[in-house]
């Protein structure tokens, strides 16, 4: 088997790609997808650690993370839909109505 560190390093790189995506993209949907990338990096680290220790608890926690990701994606897309109807724009820089 390969060392578990490689998989954890892959998860780290994926997490940072997601973080950079949230920082540099202005499209709200792409930002949401970058958050999904970061969640997937966490899932990958959990699965690798669970397999490394021979412990099944990590995989059950991954199931809960998937549930939370599904709920988060649906609520986020509903918010984006509503904001698009109001502003005709999915640009995150234009959403300033909650600022003041």
């Amino acid at each position, binding site marked *: *088997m*390969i*060392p*578990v*560190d*490689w*998989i*954890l390093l*892959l998860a*780290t*790189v*994926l*997490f*940072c*790609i*997601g*973080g950079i*995506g949230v*920082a*540099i*993209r*202005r*499209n709200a*949907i*792409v930002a*949401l*997808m*970058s958050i999904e*990338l970061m969640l*997937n990096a966490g*899932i*990958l680290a959990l*699965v*690798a650690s*669970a*397999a490394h*220790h*021979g412990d*099944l*608890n990590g*995989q*059950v926690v*991954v*199931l*809960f993370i*998937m549930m939370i*990701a*599904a*709920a988060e*994606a*649906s*609520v986020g*897309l*509903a*918010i984006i*839909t*509503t904001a*698009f*109807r109001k502003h005709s724009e*999915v640009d995150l820089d234009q959403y300033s109505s909650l600022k003041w």
Partner: protein
Amino acid sequence: MPVFFGIIATTIILSGLGVILSKRPVYSILSLIICLYAMGALYLTLHAEFLAIVHLIVYAGAIMVLFLFVIMLMNLDRPEHLNRSRLLQWSALAVGISLVLVIGSTLYTPSGPWVVAPMGSVHAIGRLLFSKFIVPFELSAVLFLAAIVGVVITAKVPHPEGDTE
């Protein structure tokens, strides 16, 4: 085995970069689907067969289709003009690389050998989910109910005249 991991890791990283770098949102979604499939293949090698299947069904099947529906129904697939400042982009890159270095350096301690154990079957996960994790499992049902109600209320088009809200 290292060759397989190399192929999978390259696919994951390239498609992850494709998610954040492609101009059109639909291409981002397709790259993300490729990334999710590669991760599912990686789970199969990590004794997580049930998780691999659930990952493909839930993520690539349900969540990504939801994203695609929103983009295609609302006609959002227009190329984005990236006029954010160069300074912000370079600083995001620097922060990301340094984050990789910091987290990667904590992995420097040598890890032990793999515990080889058959695991990840539906039977084993199901027993654990309904005994030890029964409270979080039920709570996630409540979470989903709240999410459903929130989505319906948030995304509902208000009636033009005489609404009872």
